[in-house]
């Protein structure tokens, strides 16, 4: 038991570091991808190929003046970005990054927390994320911030419904709320029985909702600069602003991980049962493949951001309530009927 706990502590520390590192370099990747898509270079001054840019940004953020408006609620103003970052960092605990490592006859699962309600945990934490934005926007005591915050709250809760419903189809197929069980359920056909082939509609709904939950373009109305100056973080400066922006990239990392787990096979990769390697080697290759999938989806988030224009607010709410919600319900019903008819 002790050795397992020590392993878990080290594993969580490593995952924590990887999450932060990926989020940090996503800020650079975002600008590089934007540069690539708009046929320019992107940042290239700090270090070779601009690789030190995130470090320079962080230092700049820390040395900026920390501004709190005199009419703001001081403690809530500080609590806003803290909550946003805290919730963003909590989700990675249940993500299965790989199968298991067998060491000295003992099996160590590459998952921070092995619980059978992983999906519920993710949803619980994700829905807490809206408080960070809401509290910060309200405490700023600025009309633009307030509008941005209310928009964010309204949008997040609307898309959470369709998101929750699209997952139900996956749970009916797997019969479990455990993320690891969901991944294991996709191991058939030499590691190619990914849920996206069985549940394409649920996959599309989930990805659209993930974009809305992360407040990413085309659903970035909470910080719509043409209407709301800077949205909920108009009043924020220095590392408080930094934490808001950083939490967005952390959320993107976690969303990409959850998308890959639920629909794209997690750490399964084609031909995994045909390779003549030991269990541990397969696990390590699987973890690397999983990380590759995460990076792909982070790139996908950026690709969409620099390709599509923004929705109008009534279109956004209409899409969530009038299209995605009924579609998700229909998908659950069809999945149920098909499972019962085919008896699988």
């Amino acid at each position, binding site marked *: 038991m002790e050795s397992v706990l020590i392993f878990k502590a080290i594993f969580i520390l490593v995952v924590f570091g990887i999450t932060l590192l990926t989020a940090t370099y996503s800020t650079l990747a975002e600008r590089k991808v934007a540069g690539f898509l708009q046929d320019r270079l992107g940042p290239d001054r700090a270090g070779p190929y601009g690789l030190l840019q995130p470090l320079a940004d962080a230092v700049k953020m820390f040395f900026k*003046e920390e501004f709190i408006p005199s009419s703001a609620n001081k403690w809530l103003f500080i609590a806003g970005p803290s909550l946003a970052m805290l919730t963003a960092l909590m989700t990675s605990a249940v993500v299965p990054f790989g199968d298991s490592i067998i060491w000295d006859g003992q099996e160590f699962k590459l998952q921070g927390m092995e619980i059978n309600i992983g999906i519920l945990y993710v949803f619980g934490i994700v829905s807490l994320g809206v408080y960070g934005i809401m509290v910060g926007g309200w405490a700023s005591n600025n009309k633009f911030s307030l509008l941005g915050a209310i928009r964010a709250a309204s949008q997040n809760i609307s898309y959470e419904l369709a998101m929750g419903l699209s997952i139900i189809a996956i749970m009916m197929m797997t019969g479990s709320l455990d993320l690891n069980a969901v991944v294991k359920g996709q191991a058939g056909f030499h590691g190619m029985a990914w849920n996206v082939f069985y549940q394409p509609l649920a996959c599309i709904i989930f990805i659209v909702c993930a974009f809305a939950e992360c407040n990413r373009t085309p659903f970035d109305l909470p910080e719509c600069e043409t209407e709301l100056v800077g949205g909920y973080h108009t009043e924020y400066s220095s590392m408080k602003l930094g934490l808001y922006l950083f939490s967005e990239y952390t959320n993107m990392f976690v969303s990409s991980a959850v998308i890959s787990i639920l629909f794209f096979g997690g750490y399964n990769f084609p031909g995994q049962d045909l390779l003549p390697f030991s269990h541990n080697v397969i696990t390590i290759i699987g973890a690397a493949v999983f990380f590759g999938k995460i990076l792909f989806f982070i790139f996908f988030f950026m690709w969409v951001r620099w390709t599509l224009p923004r929705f109008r607010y009534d279109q956004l709410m209409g899409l969530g309530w009038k299209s995605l919600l009924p579609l998700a319900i229909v998908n659950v019903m069809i999945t149920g009927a098909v499972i019962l008819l085919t008896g699988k």
Partner: protein
Amino acid sequence: MQVSSPQDYLPIIIQFALALGFVVLSMIASHAIGPKRKAKIKDEQWECGIESVGDARAPISIKYFLVAILFVLFDVEVIFMYPWAVNFRYLGWIGFVEMVIFMGFLLTGYFYIIKKGVLNWE
């Protein structure tokens, strides 16, 4: 289905401690390092350079409230479906028909709010 024991949840404390430590440290560091200059006009909330009128403790559109109430209603239904989905194979056709009836009630309410124009943003 496997059962989780309380010690399976222990790692969450480690995760929480790490996350909290990171947030608190960066907040304190940013507070300690950055310069602070205070002035009456500078400390006002900023609204596009135009002199601000009143503050943001004003009433807002009722639509947002309605959306929040509807969310609570529908989200309870979604959570209600989770245990059903996990035990779906075990419940079989009877469970499926029961859920279709339940969904029928839910969708009736849904069409009612659509027809009432609750989700029209004009």
